[in-house]
């Protein structure tokens, strides 16, 4: 069954990497819901956060295919893990004097911020989970949405032992740095397979 899966990927910060990653996902026939990319504390490394609507086995295949790319340093399917996954929403609302107070009340409840204000409209910034942003947009709809821009999710795993790290050459190399959604030594046969 298809569901939204969250992939966190560390990639080389080089030209063309976004193209390669996007192509590898497209090549397997998967649609990218959102993809955000930005620098990390290491200038040579960027982090991509990808959300795709796929089944578990497809996600595993996509993850493994991405892990094969030379420019992909590590990849983790963090769906269902303890993660902080937030996105940024900018929304321009129709907000004339008559309805502005009502709009701003909801913005407050969502801990949003007004970042621009004009005579007939406001631009509001909201951050949080995709679900929270979806809910906020639903509540804004009756007031008249003029424009929406969403960043797509960025995510980090919670806790001290963050799962994504750069491979250390000096360590004896273990299994490649892939964390597929299921262990590949499952004795139980996957029902999506043929056996």
């Amino acid at each position: 069954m298809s569901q939204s899966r969250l992939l966190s990927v560390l990639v080389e910060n080089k030209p063309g990497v976004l193209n390669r990653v996007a192509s590898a996902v497209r090549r397997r026939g998967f649609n990218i819901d959102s993809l955000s990319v930005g620098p990390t504390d290491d200038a040579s490394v960027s982090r991509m956060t990808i959300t795709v609507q796929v089944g578990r086995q497809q996600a595993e295949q996509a993850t493994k295919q991405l892990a094969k790319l030379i420019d992909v340093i590590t990849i983790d399917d963090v769906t269902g893990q303890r993660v902080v996954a937030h996105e940024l929403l900018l929304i321009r609302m129709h907000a004339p004097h008559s309805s502005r107070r009502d709009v701003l009340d909801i913005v407050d409840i969502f801990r949003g911020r007004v970042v621009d204000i004009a005579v007939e409209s406001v631009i509001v910034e909201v951050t949080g989970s995709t679900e929270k942003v979806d809910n906020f947009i639903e509540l804004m709809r009756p007031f008249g949405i003029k424009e929406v821009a969403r960043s797509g999710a960025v995510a980090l795993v919670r806790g001290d032992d963050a799962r994504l790290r750069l491979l250390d050459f000096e360590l004896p190399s273990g299994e490649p740095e892939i964390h597929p959604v299921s262990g590949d030594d499952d004795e139980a046969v996957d029902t999506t397979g043929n056996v």
Partner: protein
Amino acid sequence: MIQARPDTEAEEPAAAKRPLTGAEIVFECLLAEGVSTIFGYPGGANLPLYQHLPSYPQLHHVLVRHEQGGAHAADGYARSRRGAVGVVFATSGPGALNMVTGLATAYADSVPVVAITGQVAITAVGTDAFQESDVIGSTMSVTKHSYLVTRIEDIAPTIREAFHVARSGRPGPVLIDLPKDLQQATMEFEPATEPVRLRSFPEPPRPDGMKLRRIAQLISEARRPVMLIGRGVIISGAETEVMELAHRAHIPTGWTLLGTGAFPVRDPLALQMVGFMGAGFTNRAVCDADLLILIGMRCDDRVTTRLDSFAPRVEHIVHIDIDPAEIGKNVVPHVSLVADAKTALGALLPLVEPKREHEWLTTIDQWREEHPIRFVHRNGLLQPQEVLIEMYRRCQDEAIVLADVGLNQIWAALWFDYRKPGRFLNSGGTGTMGYAFPASMGAKLSNPDKTVFCISGEGGFVMNMQEMATMVEQNIDVNVLILNNASLGMVRQFQDEFYGGIRSAVDLSFTPDFVKLGEAFGMKAMTTDRAADVGPMLDEALAHHGPVLMNFDIDRDANVYPIVPLGKGMLDFVEAS
């Protein structure tokens, strides 16, 4: 690691350093990688490379007559000899784009090739300049990796990294797009000494001991084990280990099209090719097996046929492959091992108890008798198998055999007949018609001491026949066998059997007179349609030093059997009648 120090402490006198051009740096780096042969075609954007090429007489440049031929030749060069990497040059735009099919062929079959394409000057990249095309974009999905070099300082590290990527792990083609102005720029060049390390590209892991013990246990418990091997076994050089495992636990062993040659066909434990056009007894063995050991293979649709018909009685599937993405892609294993085949089997062998299941082997031998690989003599017409049997007789378990794509390919695979592991090259993944002939030229240059036979249909041969000029110019001693049925045979068979019997666009009666054609290019050429002539013709070809073109007018209605009708399952194979 401690290394012996040289006796003399004296430092080498520092050679007077002169700046090298980017083009010279390319050649220095190729020599450092052990390259001795380059297939290539010059053009505007790689002229600086060709300007400096004559200064490197130790590099043998083969001027191919089409860039696709060059890419296939580099593939054949690498595929025919373990450890070799094929190198091919092309210019920008059309030159590079002509290689796409050749790169895709190498990619699908995991062949290490390094392609160096000229690109317009870095200042002109992106301006739609003359003969500019987006080569990186066009080849991204058919290469393991690709590089656009943007600074002269990056040329040497890029070439080193490209060779490392091409040959490590699951091998594959790598493309380097090298702008013309960087080939002409100069810098002081210091050969690198550090090994290449890529943080995203770890060494294959050591096989996990727990899993190895589990696999050994499954082997000892199995009552109906079958092993299937693919090209990964050949790449890794694990033929001996596969034989040892098969014999220690008496495991019948079959192979994929690309695994053909890895296991001796005459071995009592040898099954045959599996799958869509595999032997009936192999498919029956797979479908009845309780343990299936898959090594170095992808389980593609030509192997499994309809996926739900593949190995229905199996209790455990073990899959060993170096590429984690192949594990569970099509067939979901119970135990998997991401590892190099030779390493994995080397570690597994000591854990495997010798054993024998008489009943299972007897059953398989029965099936072997019920479903022999056979052909039918018809109307006194020359059968392709008669040609192949005569050819394999002359291979002495040594010759390198290439097959093109289509009926000729499957016939050649099914009749491959060595008593020890041998080399059978064909485009198994992409099924590229026109592969065999240019690849055979690479194979011969890579293995000058070995006899090379190139089998092709007349359709595939003409797709890259321009390479006859290269063959003759270089006097490359390849024996070409055209199995000529005056049609696109496999398509014709599919139309006859699966597409309503309507023959459409498969008639090749208008192919040229191959004797005249070969002679026009300067090749020795012969033709026959009689079985009695086949042996003497082959002997004459083998006695001749230089390329020989042999045309065999075979039975136009000869088909491949067994075959699983499209959409049917593994046991629905149709046999020769």
